[in-house]
């Protein structure tokens, strides 16, 4: 939102970054400890790649639309 101090995309970026970090963190913990959740296709380690995608997208939006940054 150009006319607002903080863009909605920044809020979205922050939330995705937090969620991505949490989910990726859990996925890494699964790998390290070898304890996996009892879900189908657990061998694909969805928390790792889904968390990583969310984290990357989140960081992109949070940085690209950070407050005070000229669009």
């Amino acid at each position, binding site marked *: 939102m150009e006319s607002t101090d903080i863009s909605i995309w920044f809020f979205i970026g922050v939330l995705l970054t937090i969620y991505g970090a949490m989910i990726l963190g859990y996925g890494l913990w699964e790998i390290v400890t070898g304890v996996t959740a009892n879900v189908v296709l657990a061998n694909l380690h969805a*928390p790792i790649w889904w968390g990583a995608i*969310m984290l990357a997208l989140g960081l992109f939006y949070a940085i690209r639309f950070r407050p005070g940054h000229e669009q």
Partner: protein
Amino acid sequence: MLDIAITSTQTGSLLSLAKLSLAEGVSSLAHLAPLDIAVIAIYFEMVMWIGFYLKKRANTSEEFFMAGREMTAWIAGLSFVSANLGSLELMGWAGSAYQYGILAAHWYWIGAVPAMLFLGIVMMPFYYVSKTHSVPGYLKMRFGQGSSTVAAFSFAFMTILMSGVNMFSMALVMKVVLGWDITFSIVISSLAVAAYVALGGLRSAIFNEVLQFVLIWGGALLVPILGLIEAHGWTGLKAQIIHNFPTQDYLHMWKGLGHFNDNPMGVHWTGIVFGLGFVISFGYWTTDFLVVQRVLAANSLRSARIAPVIGSFFKMAVPFIVILPGLLALVVLHNPDGSLMHLVGEDVVSAHPGAGLHSYNEVLPLMLVRYCSPGLLGLGITALIAGFMSGMAGNVSAFAAVWTYDIYQPLINKKAPDQHYVAVGRWATILGVVVSIGAAYLVMNAKGIMDYVQALFSFFIAPLLGSILMGMFWKRATKAGGFWGLLVGTVTSISLWAWVKEDPSALRYVAVSANAKDMAENMYRALWCFSITVIVTFVISMFGKARPVAELNGLVYGATKLPKEEPVPFYKNEWYWAAIAVVLFVAINVIFW
């Protein structure tokens, strides 16, 4: 949601599912880990942060009710789709896809896309140029206070009632899926919505809707991706569906619509095309202020025109996270003994308590639990909560605008300072939420109301469409014609519904076939009352004196000089993207014919 008209079956059956589970003390489907709780809690923190942050940008009525008309096309377009994407819709249509197959996608494609494009390309200039604050506001300018008042009261009443019904249904679903207390769910979600909409007005509602839209995709997209991997791709899925259900056609959208008996929905292609594709869809997407308000907040006419076009692309994609999981469930869900799981209707579940049966509407939670580990499950549940809150925020922000501009200002207090109307809007938001909570508990204690509420909403949509179209595209339409057309159309709709309720055999007249089912009846009733509205408006207008053309500038096609817009590159032109949307729309219908 195409609200009631389209989700009636889903909402009703979700309600029965929840009531059933409550009565039988069925244990919850999912159990949240601390990580999941943290994901949900962070979401609530974020929406409140947005609300408090935007409070400083909601000081004037234009800012509070219209978000200062500063939204870009992308924001307006995403919000336009998100306000419609409730969680009852997500869960209900996933269940319908399991039950009826890909036929359910009609509600996302022909039941939405043509109307969205029509709104953006054809109707938006009149809404936008007239500078109306609401759809009843447009009727006031075109047909006078009478039509506007009828539309405003019916919209305000139905919006709040619907908000309450959705609130209750969602709380019950949370009870079934997570074991949460009903009052807890209602209070927490309502307080959050009331706070962020009352603080930041429409801008806050729109910001949160965009955020919720991203979350819905982030939380729900993993299910079809993992489901397709498990089913060996689309080809594998089709082969397994045909193998598991050789007598059912779950994979064609149009092939079985030649006769009411040839498809599980009991609909005919005329009902889908004219009832759903035209009257119900156009009625909802072009005249329901809940969605139109989002586009009116756009920062320019071009943005307002292109926003619904952008929305149409996302609407076409929604079946990927709603319909596809339902289809995947047909082949991937298995019982603990390895046999294929067969989901059933609530009536069957209730007839066999303790048998471990699951209903159609549990498809999405079952799929989430199947694939999602801690964190991802919380994200999926957050998507459902976000969907619910975006729908509710849409309802209350639209209610606040209609109450303030179309009821309070013209009928109660005509001349007050701008700050007064902002205060009224804030209180209307809180009042709307409080009344919604009351409606939720009313539904809880009077189970039959649900059936009536679902029919009620469709009473107002089709006549309103007839009235708006006649007003917008026929210069000769008069004030009396507009008023009586709207009133008679509404009364006709209620009468047809009551007729079938009293004498079920009347269905063969109202819905053209005795074999028609609820959805088909809704579609044909909408078609009849739309036609009556148009005919009455036409006949009465022919006997009256039309307004001078000069007075219709900005309101009627052929009498309006549209502002000249700056030329833009083709890839920023609404016609270009609308043409691509049309091609895509035709292509997906042909592919899944």
